[in-house]
């Protein structure tokens, strides 16, 4: 294991010029070869934390070190790649797919940003790896939601950063692309990258994350998936923001079995089946007890 953690966030507090404190006293360490979910409601400070890691905002207190360097140094040495949310991108911008991926190489080029043969090769590789080679001459606005996402993943690959920040990568993406993105993240993890993935898509977090960081202005919990992504911690992270459905007793069993099923969901009401294959019964219907957040 390397000595210094790749991301070391130490007592970070960020206050905006208008006096609003977005996050306070957040600390956690992340090491290479990890996929970490950054989970919290809207306004919990996920994007502020991203901004702090990329030097957009300067912490009022505390500090962030990336692979033992301060943020500015780390960015200069191309340590961090950023995959933006789809809403943040101007899809009408006159750039082709290959132009966007080439932007990932800019940090490796000289001042005039003239690509070398190696830069071109890395772009080809990155495009091939996300399966977008045949779309390289398309203007980015002409792509589907999943393809758009893959272009920016390819840019992160071409940049060869050891830390990859992904902002809500599954929003507006079909199930097939979601699986492909998760697969790619696992490969990158095995190659020693650290991915920090902000998401409010709770259901998929256990599928691909090794660690989670739960925040809501303050750090609620951070650590390995198994011990951290618990019902109790989630209830604290989401408060009254989630539908919290518990199925037990008569809704589930015909006997006195004390076991229960808990379903937590952020917007839609879930449909939950339970029982033997042929005669499943719908259990999350009217009979289920439903509460908002309370344990």
């Amino acid at each position, binding site marked *: 294991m390397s000595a210094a953690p790749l991301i070391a966030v130490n007592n970070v507090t960020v206050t905006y*010029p*208008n006096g609003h404190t977005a996050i306070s006293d957040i600390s956690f360490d992340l090491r290479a070869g990890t996929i970490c979910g950054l989970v919290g409601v809207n306004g919990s400070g996920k994007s502020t934390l991203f901004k702090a890691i*990329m*030097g*957009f905002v300067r912490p009022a207190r505390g500090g962030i070190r990336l692979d033992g360097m301060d943020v*500015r140094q780390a*960015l*200069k*040495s*191309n340590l*961090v*790649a*950023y995959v*933006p949310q789809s809403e*943040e*991108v*101007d899809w*009408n*911008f*006159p*750039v*082709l797919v290959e*132009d*966007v991926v080439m*932007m*990932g190489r*800019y*940090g490796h080029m000289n*001042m*005039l*940003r003239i690509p070398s043969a190696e830069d071109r090769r890395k772009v080809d590789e990155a495009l091939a790896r996300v399966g977008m080679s045949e779309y390289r001459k398309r*203007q980015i606005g002409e792509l589907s939601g999943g393809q758009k996402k893959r272009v920016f993943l390819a*840019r992160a690959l071409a*940049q060869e*950063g050891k830390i990859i*920040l992904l902002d809500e990568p599954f929003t507006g993406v079909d199930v097939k692309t979601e699986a492909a993105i998760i697969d790619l993240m696992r490969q990158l993890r095995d190659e020693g990258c650290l991915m920090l993935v902000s998401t409010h898509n709770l259901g998929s977090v256990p599928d691909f994350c090794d660690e989670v960081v739960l925040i809501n202005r303050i750090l609620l919990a951070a650590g390995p998936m198994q011990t951290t992504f618990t019902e109790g911690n989630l209830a604290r992270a989401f408060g009254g923001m989630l539908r919290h459905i518990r199925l037990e007793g008569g809704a589930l069993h015909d006997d006195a079995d004390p076991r229960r099923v808990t379903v937590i969901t952020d917007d839609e009401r879930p449909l939950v089946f339970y029982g033997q294959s042929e005669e499943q019964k719908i259990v999350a219907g009217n009979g289920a007890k439903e509460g908002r957040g309370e344990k």
Partner: protein
Amino acid sequence: MIELLLEPFSYDYMLRAIWVSALVGGACAFLSSYLMLKGWSLMGDALAHAVVPGVALAYLLSLPYAAGAFAAGILAALGMTFIRQQTKLREDTVIGLVFTTFFALGLLIVSINPTAVNVQTIILGNILAISDSDVVQVVIITVVSLGLLILKWKDLMVVFFDEGHARSIGLPVTGLKILFFTLLSACTVAALQTVGACLVIAMVVTPGATAYLLTDRFGRLVILSVTISVVTCALGAYISYFLDGATGGVIVTLHTLAFLAAFLAAPRHGLLAARRRTRLNAAAGGQG
């Protein structure tokens, strides 16, 4: 006939008007490629009006007009930023508020001291009567701007396209933005002389918009935009000799004609191409 067509070239002031217009047009067109992509087009208009009091004061105190204009431009930009931060007013409101204030102040100064500078020169421009010292200022501004843009065009493109990524590769985002707006104010000031405060907006918007319809790659967009603008500005100054009309008016009219041509006939984004595609699709649908 040929003699008549060559007549403008026999006058020094016409020659000078033609090449100065072309130079200013090139620099403004380069900037317009960025400006129109961000929805910041009106910033160009705002700056052009906001520099008027600076120009008026500079003439009054016989300072270089570029210095006065520049100071006023910076002051206006700072004013807008300050009001934006302190209130919840929308950006267009703040721009409208600040630039009209500055423009009014400028008109006031000029009208109180009518000898200092002709109002018409500021508002409509007067490239035909540009003085030697003004030519020097315009040349310095545009050559330095074009040089910096050629050095930094890719970095600026990344900043305009994706600020997050620009930061992640270690680009000085704030510095580059300041550079861009400094160049924009400087070129706006240079363009005041050619087309005047009212029409500067056309110089920093139209060429970029025309080129946007012609290509999907930013590098080509810049080349097209600059080429179109250099040609229209030079041609506009030349034609204005025969029409005996305001040079600014002729130049901007030509810009608009270029835009209309692209709007109609651009290979992919033009009106005719869209019609053709619709027809082809309909035909394909009919057969299938």
